């Protein structure tokens, strides 16, 4: 009989185990479901963080690259090449040499030659000299001098519209935003100016 009692107890333990196994299954189901929910939340938060980071990075890049005065200057500015005309006068030769050096991008040599031409009142191409001197300064990142040089181009000169546009860009790159905006607005309002649309576009990018 004692053996039977043991066997009954063992059988009851077996039954108990079956019942507890149902509890284990139930608890495990709840646990894995919670884990899945937790992981889903983690993935969602991670995905949201990635999206925010991408968005933030885009905004950052947008704000700090494309719309900076330097980037705008770089995207709009094109250095013009000079047309060298052959002549016989000494002044003309200096001017020719200056433009040759300028076209070779040898701005260090071009600048004193252009200054020499400007000092000589008899030199006819004063506007051209100021204009290319301005661009040579711009190439040398001497933006204040560039603006000053471009200002000297006479309004009657054929180079004047270009000089104004380039002056606006030089002022912009030199963080003289108000001055640049004023010039750009006048270009944007000028129906005869070949850079009218470009000026309007640039003003939009500047939020003006």
């Amino acid at each position: 009989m004692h053996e039977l009692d043991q066997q009954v107890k063992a059988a009851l333990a077996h039954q108990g185990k079956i019942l507890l196994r149902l509890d284990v299954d139930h608890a495990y189901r709840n646990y894995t479901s919670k884990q899945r929910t937790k992981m889903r939340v983690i993935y969602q938060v991670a995905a949201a963080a990635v999206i925010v980071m991408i968005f933030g990075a885009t905004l950052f890049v947008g704000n700090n690259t494309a719309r900076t005065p330097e980037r705008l200057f770089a995207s709009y500015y094109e250095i013009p090449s000079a047309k060298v005309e052959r002549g016989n006068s000494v002044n003309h030769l200096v001017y020719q040499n200056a433009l040759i050096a300028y076209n070779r991008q040898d701005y260090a040599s071009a600048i004193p030659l252009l200054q020499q031409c400007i000092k000589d009142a008899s030199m006819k191409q004063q506007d051209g000299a100021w204009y290319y001197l301005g661009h040579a300064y711009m190439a040398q990142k001497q933006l204040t001098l560039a603006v000053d040089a471009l200002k000297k181009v006479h309004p009657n000169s054929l180079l004047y519209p270009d000089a104004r546009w380039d002056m606006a860009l030089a002022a912009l790159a030199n963080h003289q935003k108000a001055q640049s905006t004023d010039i750009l607005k006048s270009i944007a309002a000028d129906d005869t100016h070949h850079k009218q649309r470009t000026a309007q576009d640039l003003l939009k990018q500047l939020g003006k």
Partner: protein
Amino acid sequence: MKVIYIEKSDTEIAEEIRQGGAAREAAVRYLIEKNIGFVYKMHRKLRIEESQAKDAYLDAVIAVMQQIENGVYRGENKISSYLYQIFYFKSVDIIRKKATNSEDYVESMPERADSGNDISLDLEQKESVRQIAQILEKIGQPCKQILMDWGFWGYSIQEIAQRLKIDDPLKVSRRKYRCLEELKERLKGIKIL
């Protein structure tokens, strides 16, 4: 419906398990629920099947319950750590069994004592337990519940009466006696005795 578990200290759990009955049942269920994360962890850590991990976990819970009852567990470690240790070794056993199931070719058989009788005895006992379990299923309620509550969970007769909503505990006592008699009769019928 969300079940809210009140945190229990190790002393409370041990006390409730020793107390038996409803307290033991609640403590064991609490233990299972509280540490179920071990199954998930072990399943991933040792790469054992989920069902095997669950079986090993349940065996570990029962072992902890028995060791608390017998006084083997003296509260030197946290119950959860104790449970984890047992569960870990049981899981490792599963892996070992799996590994030893692979065939090994040997030139000579190792010398071993003849354990033929023990094996047949063990098988006989297992068969008896299986048959009793079958009879318990056939007897049905409330016999099964009375015997389980009394024999497995250790409920008192008064507690069983309360659970079955029977006013007189004597009726439960008599019912339990009849259930055991019926169990023995049925066992005689299949010539176990």
